[in-house]
């Protein structure tokens, strides 16, 4: 199963809010502890609807991949649904669905996650399913072959056959990052996907899919005592492994920003990606960048909507967030970026669109953000916190991501507290210092003339 991320699914939707979390008068209770094998556990009880979400998140993602194995983290995610010691191939789906649940997995730049959402009396079943594959994944040549085909098919479906997507997954990271860990294609090339061996899969499993490299979250309708007992029963005796070596993700020193153009045979409306390297995550400047993004692209009255879509009438749709395209505000490791993707009217040249966006940012760099505008953005943030925490799964995801990446589930609240504390002058300063024309990378996506031969499709599907 699994998608690379949710981002591309809504590619053409106007991004409403870039954030996924928290606010001051609405708190999520949780308790966290660690098993002897190093597995971290977070429990968050809420009995309103008799459902539970089990969320398992591993500290490995596309940015953990080695050269020659692009796309491997995602291919491995598929292997996790192919059976284990006590659950035969295909049975994972069956157990979840036949018991009234839904499940999925997804691969991100810095983590991979798996979840089941089920009626609450099925908690032990969900724990059995997740623990069995953590303990004893079935790694066979047949399963690998089958999932290599499924992933290649997913690449065709979600990227090669869609407008903009190939440029976003293959070209943009390469343009804006210098270190292989960040600059390679997250979905991977057909060549690399085919080169993956059963040994690679076994090694990856042992290295990264160990209890001490995972966080397990249960959210919803359960008793804390019962859950602790069950977690111990199912996961307690899975042996720990040596901690994985983490790749060096340091970016080389950057020269001036770059501008490139790609021709897209599927696009009919031109698009442009504009991005900048971001300040260190969780620094004061980082939160200021989050608020700057909200001023530019959040809600109906943001700058891009009022000035570019309505005012100049040059931009058709836009989306942007810190971490774009494959991460959200909260769910990646440094180094990060801030990027915007705009579709624009064909009577404009891409340089004009980039200039217009830059002028919007420079305006904030010069004049700051009026109080009333900042208040609006903060009201929207409060709304965003409440809505993102309505479901058990939403709560489990955020708690798990914060525990895995930061060791602090409480950041579900404190990240928002920090955003609320940002002042207009901090936003002004970060616009001036970070989002400058000199530091900017630009990727123009031009619709190919109709007659042009297919460009991106190297393989054509053999």
């Amino acid at each position, binding site marked *: 199963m699994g998608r690379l991320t949710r981002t591309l699914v809504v590619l053409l939707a106007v991004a409403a809010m870039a954030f996924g979390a928290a606010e001051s008068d609405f708190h999520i209770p949780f308790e966290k502890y660690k098993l002897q094998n190093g597995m971290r556990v977070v429990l968050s009880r809420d009995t309103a609807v008799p459902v539970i979400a089990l969320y398992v998140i591993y500290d490995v993602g596309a940015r953990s991949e080695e050269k020659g194995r692009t796309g491997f983290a995602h291919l491995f995610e598929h292997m996790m649904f192919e059976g284990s010691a006590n659950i035969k191939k295909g049975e994972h789906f069956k157990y979840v669905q036949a018991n009234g649940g*839904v499940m999925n997995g997804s691969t991100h730049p810095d983590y991979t996650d798996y979840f089941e959402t089920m009626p609450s009396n099925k908690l032990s079943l969900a724990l059995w399913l997740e623990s069995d594959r953590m303990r004893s994944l079935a790694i066979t040549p047949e399963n690998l072959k089958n999932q290599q085909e499924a992933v290649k*098919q997913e690449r065709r479906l979600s990227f090669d056959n869609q407008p903009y997507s190939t440029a976003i997954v293959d070209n943009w990271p390469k343009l804006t990052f210098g270190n292989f860990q960040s600059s390679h294609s997250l979905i991977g090339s057909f060549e690399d996907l085919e080169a993956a061996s059963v040994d690679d899969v076994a090694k990856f499993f042992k290295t990264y899919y160990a209890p001490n490299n995972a966080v397990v979250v249960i959210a919803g309708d359960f008793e804390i005592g019962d859950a602790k007992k069950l977690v111990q029963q199912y996961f307690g005796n899975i042996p720990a492994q040596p901690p994985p070596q983490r790749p060096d993700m340091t970016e080389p020193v950057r020269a001036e920003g770059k501008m490139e153009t790609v021709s897209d045979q599927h696009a009919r*409306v031109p698009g442009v990606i504009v991005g900048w390297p971001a300040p260190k995550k969780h620094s004061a400047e980082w939160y200021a960048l989050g608020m700057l993004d909200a001023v530019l692209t959040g809600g109906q009255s943001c700058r891009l909507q009022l000035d570019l879509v309505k005012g100049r009438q040059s931009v058709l749709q836009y989306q942007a967030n810190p971490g774009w395209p494959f991460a959200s505000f909260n769910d990646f490791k440094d180094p990060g970026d801030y990027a915007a993707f705009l579709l624009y009217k064909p009577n404009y040249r891409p340089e004009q669109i980039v200039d217009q966006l830059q002028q919007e940012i420079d305006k904030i760099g010069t004049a700051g953000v009026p109080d009333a505008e900042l208040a609006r953005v903060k009201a*929207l943030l409060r*709304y965003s916190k*409440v809505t993102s925490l309505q479901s058990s799964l939403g709560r489990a995801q955020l708690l798990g991501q914060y525990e895995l990446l930061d060791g602090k589930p409480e950041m579900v609240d404190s990240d928002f507290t920090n955003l609320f504390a940002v002042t207009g002058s901090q936003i002004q300063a970060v616009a001036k210092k970070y989002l400058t024309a000199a530091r900017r990378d630009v990727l123009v996506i031009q619709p190919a003339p109709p007659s042009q031969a297919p460009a991106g499709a190297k393989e054509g599907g053999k």
Partner: protein
Amino acid sequence: MNYRSLSYLLLAAALPLAAQTVDLTKPPVSKDPRPYKLPPVSESKLPNGLTILLAEDNRFPLVTSRLVFLAGNKRDPKEIPGLAASVATMLMQGTSSHDYQQIAEDLDSLGGVMAATTGADSLNIEASVLSENFDRMLALVSDVARNAIFPAPELDLHKQNRKQTLMAQHAQPAFLANEEYRKVLFGDTPYGHVGPTAESIDKLDRKALEDFRDTYLVPNNAYLILVGKLPARAQLMKTITAQFGSWEQKKVPAYVAPKVPESKRELVLVDRPGSVQADMRLGKIGATYNDADYFPENVGSTIEGGGPNSRLFLDIREKRGFAYDVHTEVAALADAGTFSTVTQVRNEVVGEALQGILDHLDRMAKEPVERQELSEAKSYSNGVFLLSMEPQRGLADRLVQMKVMNQPKNYLETYTTKINSVEPDQIESAAKKYMATDNDAIVVVGDAAAIEKPLEKFGTVRVVKPAQ
């Protein structure tokens, strides 16, 4: 005495073991499910005919609002397909007292979102907001519903942008497939179009928008649905009356659904040069929610193509590796539904994959489903229903559906019972009607040069160019 101490000893010896070991080779036995009771929904009507549905949900400081009009795309005039959707978009672009910027700034400052959307049967002003600002949000909903003025510059911009977004939609194979599929199934009846054409966008003017609004966006053709942390009832009714009470009712032209064309085997290939795979959508007319065989069709669809435990997924994707996604869809509309199968396969296996899918569908119409897969499908449907109730919009959107589809008042309470009562023979006869493939429409979007040949064995292939 002896007896008692013996039993005590046995118990003591057994307990620690039971606490520590668990049989990992078998799925654990579940406790009984904890029952869930839907929040009560109260229904009332203002004197002007506006129907009001209210449900308390105090879990979050949030209110979800839906103002729904029975005025969807099916009410588009024949010469302006897409009009209802343009009316929806333009409602937000200016009213007699607020321009776009004021509406947008008000909305954002409340901590809320609002959007007007259309489906085939309804136009829906959807909003949700932090509960402390509920009154002000309701005032905004009322303003855009009642007082939109469709300013000329905003309409010009809408027309320009809609043409561009239509082009962007036509770059997406799934959109092309759905657009053509609806055309093939419904011909020139109102469900035959999903949106505008470049020509119909040119025809939009203020008068057309106003006519549509004044005809259909009236209180006696609308439902106001509020779910969330609501003010006390008397206060709430006062607020609702203040916002909507003076809205004048008006007779709405009756709608008589035209007869839907007979389904017949038709094979259309939308040529998209350079496609590296074929997007397929096939099927025919299905049940409405109120047809007796809707539930059998629905449960049958779950067995056939509803999620990763379904027959199609396990065979076409997992066993044969033809596709990443393959699923069936039951889309019940108010006057007619569709039953469809959707997949995207690589060019080399188009013929094999299509044959595999047709065989599966025909088997449903010929053989009863197994008891085991039937009970699994029922659990799944009931579980998904429960899961959908977690976010507040879950109940709100179910209530919208109840009203637009004219479902009985106890629809939600009896949903699970109706799912559970479906029998294999009912699925088989529903499948004969809705799944058997001899008269299926088959729409494929892909590179005609690569895939036309293998499609020919399924019928006469009509190749069309995608609209601009």
